[in-house]
């Protein structure tokens, strides 16, 4: 029988949990959003600094479990330097992946793909989703601000 713990807490996840990326303050962020998981009380604060439609800097402050901290850290690492359009695509693919939906075969997720394993632990999916849903809300608010079209409307 496989050890359920090693399955959930992969090495990459533990690494991000112990030294979360993006866990810092950034001055004058262009947008800031707080996310809450009502079922457990976990909280996340996500701030983005933009430069020419690219993510110039990101801060993720997460008060939560290892899975939510690691997920937020993987997020910070994955989206830095990417264009908003790319980030939107990544976020929506991760969300689908966590919900156990089909993921486009050409999606190159890199380290984030490790989060797929969380899908086998339904009670922990929300933990992994928190930072991504908060990011999606951030991007939507940004688009609202610039009057552009919103394409991610799915509720968490």
């Amino acid at each position: 029988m496989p050890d359920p713990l090693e399955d959930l807490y992969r090495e990459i996840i533990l690494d991000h949990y112990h030294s979360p990326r993006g866990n810092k303050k950034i001055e004058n962020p262009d947008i800031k959003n707080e996310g809450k998981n009502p079922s457990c009380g976990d909280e996340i604060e996500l701030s983005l600094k933009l430069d020419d439609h690219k993510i110039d800097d990101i801060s993720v402050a997460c008060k939560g479990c290892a899975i939510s901290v690691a997920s937020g850290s993987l997020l910070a690492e994955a989206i830095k330097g990417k264009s908003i359009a790319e980030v939107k695509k990544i976020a929506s693919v991760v969300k689908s992946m966590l919900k156990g939906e089909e993921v486009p075969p050409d999606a190159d997720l890199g380290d984030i793909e490790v989060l797929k394993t969380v899908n086998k632990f339904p009670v922990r999916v929300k933990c992994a989703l928190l930072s991504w849903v908060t990011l999606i809300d951030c991007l939507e608010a940004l688009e609202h601000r610039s009057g552009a079209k919103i394409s991610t409307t799915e509720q968490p």
Partner: protein
Amino acid sequence: MRKTENGRAIGATQAAPAKIDPVTIKGDFPIFERKIHGRRLIYLDNAATTHKPEQVLAALSSFYRYHNANVHRGLHTLAEEATLAYESTRKKAADFIGARAPEEIVFTRNATEAINLVAYSWGRANIGPGDRLVATQMEHHANLVPWIVLANRVGAELRYIPIDGNGELDLEVLPELLTPNTRLVAVTQMSNVLGTINPVREIGRFAHQAGALLLVDGAQAVPHMPVNVTDIDADFYVFSAHKMLGPTGVGVLFAKASLLDTMEPYNLGGEMISRVTFESVDWNQPPHKYEAGTPNIAGVAAFATAIDYLKQLDLEAVRNHEIDLTEYALKRLGELEHVKIFGPADPMKRGAAISFVDDKIHPHDLASVLDSRGIAIRAGHHCAQPLTNLLGQISTARASFYIYNDREDVDELIEGLKAARRFFGYA
């Protein structure tokens, strides 16, 4: 028989109550035959819901197999049997909590619905602008949200009895909280987070002196200790079948007959009427006027078996077993320097629901590590978010014990917590 408020019998002339034998009891519960991740199940989430003995499962099945019919209508044999099963449980529940009559018992879906019934039927008619409601800082959302919403809706004020550093209610402030315009004091008999057993009889005495009614949330008390609502002099008392070996979907509202006589029902439809024309309705007698529609008949029938099971064990013996387990669990948890325990340190002042945190590991991660070892605990705010935040936490871990748990289960919990430290690299 005289009892202290924490359920222990007092007086030297009593015969010692029967002892609880968790190993024998476990044999009655089929769920313990299954394995979790290849390990035996160690179930420490009893404050959320308890497991069901074979006897209760058989009663549930037997109702559908041999007696299934709707209640209070139809004149055939099955309808009579179903009605008898349903109504005799009402009598049994009334006796179990010391109500004066079965008519003081209303079946609901759960304890939450019972409180909502009071908030709608009694609250909206009796609480107005400027009136006061008093609750405590340790209430479950079930005994909090209905009062917050009611207070906001009618313009009443809601005040809270604070907790002290020990997790007990600070009752010194009670007299000044109870102004002449206070209509209701809503308090839990046992906190689902802190385990604290509150002196509800004493609180009720203060409430009644001030002209207020007393509502007691007994969801965590009735399964674990002898309760007598007449002795407490509760005006309303609520609890749930599923936390005391019974099926889910059955809750109980006890209310004094004089209140049930005058309150207006809030759930309307079949079963709760005595006469209906196209223009008007006359209510049925209580308790039926509060039980609109087809109730959970099979669940109620099987609930009687759960009550029988507990009565046969003797609630005093149950309480004593849990005092012993709590004492042991508090001692063992206290040995772990990285663990902080909430609630009273004295097992006589509390029940066997023990919340704690590890100084490094999030409760969710503790729960996952323990689950991998077959141990079920709860992690989160336990539907008491204001209290959890008051304790300076966003989430806690909780182990809650019952009749089928023993000291070995406590030892496994401790080993699991140590394993979590090792797994996350803190040991």
